[in-house]
C-alpha cells in the first residue's frame, strides 16, 4: 500500500469506488463540515474536500480534512497550484500527513478572476503535473523537490483531475498520460453528462493502456433544476451537456427526481465502461442527496476493511 | 456668438461651406467666405465663413487629436469636424477614422470635466450647403448654452488657432471671460 487510505484499499480490492465532494464553509464554522461529513458517512469511500473552489475563500481544505478524518471518514485533500508556492505546498503536505490525511488531489485551480478576490496575485509556481511529481518524490523517494532527503515520508495516495470534455480533445489523453507518468495513482474526472463523448475519451485511454496504470473515477453531478442543467451546459468551462438532458429537466414534473434519475442512469452507464474504477459524486450545494443516489445506483453497502487489511 | 472652428474636408464639407457662404444661407444673414490662407500644418488652409473659422483639410483623416485640442485651447468654444459620408471618402476610410478620433477626443475632454459636446463630427456632401448652415446654427446654439470654452490663454501653435486672435490672450482674461 502506498498510503493505506481507505480509498486506496477499495480500489486495490477491485471494488467499484464511490467518492463524494464536500465544500467547506465560507466561515470557521466547524459544524458545517461535521454535518456535511456525517451525511456522507457510510455512503462513500472517501470524501474530497475542495481547496477554495472557484477561488472563493473558504475554510482550508487541510483543516476540513482533519475534521472529517476525526469523524472516521477518509478525506481527499484537494490542493491547487493557484495559491501556494512549492514551499507552502510541501509544508502543507507534511502537515496534512501528520494530521492523518492520506489522499491528495493535485489540481491546477480555478483562476482567481472567478472568485471573490479577483485582484489577488496568483502563484502557479508549479503546475498540477509537477505537483503530482513532487508528492510522489516526497512519498517514494523521501525527497523534497530540491532533492534534499526527509526523515519520514508523507504517505499519500495521489490523485489528479482529468477533463475529457475540454480542448484540445486529442491532447487530453496525452495530458492524462503525463499525469500518470508523473505519479498519479487515481484520477477523478470532470462531471460526465455526455456519456458517448466520455466513452470516446476512454477508448483513447485504452489505446494508451492508461486504465491499467491508474484508477479512473468518473465524476457525476446530481442536478436539481432545468436552470442548473442549462448553467452546466452554457456557463461551466470544459463541460459537455447533451440537449436531451436539458429537455428532460425542462419537461419533468418533479425536476429534483428527474435530476436524481439522470444521475443514477449515468452512473449505471459509466459502470459498464471498461477502465472506470468508480464514481466521484459532486452534489454541489446538495450533499444530502448523496446517500439516495448511492443507494439507487446499487452501490450499497460500502466495503469495510480492517485497520490492518492489506 | 461662440467661437467655432470647423475642420472641413475639401472634397465635401468645404464645398458645402463655400456654397453656403455664396448663398448667405445662415439665418438669412450673408456669410461671405474669407480667403483661405495656408495653415501651419501642411495641407491645411484657414479661412472664415461668417463667425466660423474653417480649416480646409485634404481629408478629415488628417485631423489629429492635438489639432482639435489646440483649437479648443487656443480659444474655440466648440470644434466640429466635417467629413464626407461614410462610403464617399476620397481616401476610402479617412472619414471613419476621423469620426472615431473625434469620439476619442470627446472622452478625453470629458475626463477633464469639459462638455464633450463641444466637439462633434458631422457628415456632409459637397452640395449640402443648407445642411452646413443648419449644423453651424445648431452647434453654435449648443455651444453658446455651455458657456465659454476651455481656452487657457497660453499661446499655442497649431492649426485652427485663429479663434484665439479674436479671443483671449492671457490666463487672467480667460478667467474673466468665464466669469462673465
Amino acid at each position: 500500500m502506498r498510503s493505506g487510505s481507505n480509498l486506496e484499499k477499495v480500489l486495490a480490492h477491485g471494488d467499484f469506488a464511490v467518492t463524494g465532494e464536500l465544500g467547506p464553509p465560507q466561515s470557521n464554522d466547524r459544524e458545517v463540515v461535521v454535518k456535511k461529513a456525517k451525511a456522507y458517512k457510510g455512503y462513500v469511500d472517501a470524501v474530497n474536500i475542495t481547496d477554495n473552489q472557484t477561488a472563493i475563500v473558504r475554510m482550508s481544505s487541510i483543516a476540513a480534512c482533519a475534521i472529517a478524518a476525526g469523524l472516521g471518514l477518509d478525506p481527499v485533500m484537494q490542493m491547487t497550484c493557484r495559491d501556494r508556492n512549492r514551499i507552502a505546498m510541501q509544508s502543507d503536505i507534511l502537515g496534512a500527513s501528520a494530521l492523518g490525511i492520506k489522499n491528495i488531489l493535485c489540481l491546477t485551480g480555478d483562476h482567481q478572476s472567478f472568485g471573490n478576490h479577483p485582484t489577488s496575485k496568483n502563484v502557479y509556481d508549479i503546475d498540477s503535473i509537477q505537483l503530482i511529481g513532487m508528492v510522489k518524490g516526497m512519498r517514494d523517494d523521501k525527497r523534497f523537490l530540491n532533492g534534499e532527503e526527509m526523515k519520514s515520508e508523507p504517505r499519500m495516495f495521489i490523485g489528479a483531475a482529468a477533463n475529457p470534455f475540454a480542448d484540445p480533445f486529442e491532447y487530453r489523453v496525452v495530458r492524462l498520460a503525463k499525469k500518470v507518468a508523473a505519479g498519479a495513482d487515481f484520477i477523478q474526472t470532470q462531471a460526465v453528462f455526455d456519456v458517448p463523448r466520455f466513452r470516446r475519451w476512454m477508448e483513447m485511454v485504452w489505446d494508451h493502456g492508461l486504465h491499467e496504470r491508474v484508477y479512473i473515477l468518473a465524476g457525476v453531478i446530481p442536478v436539481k433544476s432545468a436552470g442548473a442543467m442549462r448553467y452546466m451546459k452554457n456557463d461551466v468551462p470544459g463541460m459537455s451537456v447533451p440537449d436531451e438532458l436539458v429537455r428532460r429537466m425542462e419537461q419533468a414534473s418533479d425536476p429534483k427526481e428527474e435530476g436524481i434519475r439522470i444521475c443514477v442512469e449515468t452512473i449505471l452507464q459509466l459502470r459498464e465502461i471498461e477502465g472506470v474504477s468508480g464514481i466521484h459524486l459532486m452534489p454541489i450545494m446538495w450533499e444530502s442527496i448523496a446517500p439516495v443516489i448511492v443507494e439507487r445506483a446499487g452501490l450499497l453497502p460500502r466495503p469495510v476493511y480492517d485497520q490492518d487489511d492489506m | 456668438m461662440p467661437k467655432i472652428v470647423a475642420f472641413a474636408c475639401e472634397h465635401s464639407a468645404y464645398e458645402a461651406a463655400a456654397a453656403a457662404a455664396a448663398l448667405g444661407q445662415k439665418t438669412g444673414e450673408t456669410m461671405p467666405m474669407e480667403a483661405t490662407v495656408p495653415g501651419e500644418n501642411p495641407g491645411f488652409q484657414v479661412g472664415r465663413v461668417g463667425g466660423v473659422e474653417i480649416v480646409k483639410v485634404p481629408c478629415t483623416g488628417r485631423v489629429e487629436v492635438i489639432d482639435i485640442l489646440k483649437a479648443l485651447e487656443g480659444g474655440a468654444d466648440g470644434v466640429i469636424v466635417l467629413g464626407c459620408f461614410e462610403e464617399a471618402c476620397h481616401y476610402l476610410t479617412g472619414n471613419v477614422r476621423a469620426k472615431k478620433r473625434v469620439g476619442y477626443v470627446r472622452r478625453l475632454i470629458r475626463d477633464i470635466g469639459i462638455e464633450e459636446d463641444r466637439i462633434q463630427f458631422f457628415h456632409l456632401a459637397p452640395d449640402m450647403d443648407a445642411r452646413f448652415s443648419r449644423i453651424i446654427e445648431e452647434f453654435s446654439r449648443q455651444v453658446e448654452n455651455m458657456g465659454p470654452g476651455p481656452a487657457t490663454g497660453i499661446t499655442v501653435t497649431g492649426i485652427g488657432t485663429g479663434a484665439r486672435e479674436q479671443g483671449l490672450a492671457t490666463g487672467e482674461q480667460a478667467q474673466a471671460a468665464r466669469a462673465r
Partner: protein
Amino acid sequence: MIVAEQKPVAEILRMIDGYRRILVVGCGTCVTVCMAGGEKEAGILASLIRMAWAREGRLSPLIDVSEATVERQCEWEFLGDIAEKVAASDAVLSMGCGAGVQAMARMFEGKVVLPALNTKFIGMPERQGLWTELCAGCGDCVLDRTGGICPIARCSKSLLNGPCGGSQNGKCEVSKDIDCAWQLIFDRMKSLGRLEALGTVLPPKDWFKNRDGGPRKVVREDMLL
C-alpha cells in the same frame, strides 16, 4: 517592444496637484510605437492638463505646462538634452515606461518624476490599435519546447505541461476573448509535426531566474569598462 497605456487623466491630475510648472516628457522609443507616450501623446497630455487647470481657474503667469520628447528615456545619454527644461520645472511627468521614469528620477536627483503611463508588458501590435503580451521576461526561455508560443506570458496560469481543464473551443476559461495558449501551442506543434514533444513532463521552472532577489542584472564582462 514594451507596451504601455496612459493612466486615466484624473489620476494624473491628482498626481500633479500642488505643482505649478510641469514638464511632460515623451519617449521616442517603445511608447511612441505603441502610441502611449511619444511626442504626440505628450502634446495631447500637456494640452489636457492646461485646459483642466484653466477650468479650475488655476492658470496664472506662474503656471507652465510644457512638453519635450527625448529619443530614449531609459538611457542617460539622451536625457542631457532636456536638463534645462527639467531644472525649470517643479515636477516631471514621464510618459516613458517604468524604466524611463526611473532613469529620469536617477538622472535628475532631487526632482519629482511622476509616471503618466502604466507599463503593461513586452509584446507586439497584433493589428492597428491592438497590442498583445508575448513575453513575460521570465529569464529562462522555454519557447524551444512550446512551438514558439510562450505559456508563461500567454497562459492565464503559466502552465508548463499542457492546458488546464478550462480550455474549450480554443479559448481560456478566464474569458472567451483570451486564446488558450496551450491550444495555440498544440496546433503549432501539430503543424510542425512535433506533437510527441508535448508528451514530455517539463520539470518545475527555475523561477530564481525570474525573481532572484532585487533587480536582475545582465552582465557582459567584455563590454564592461
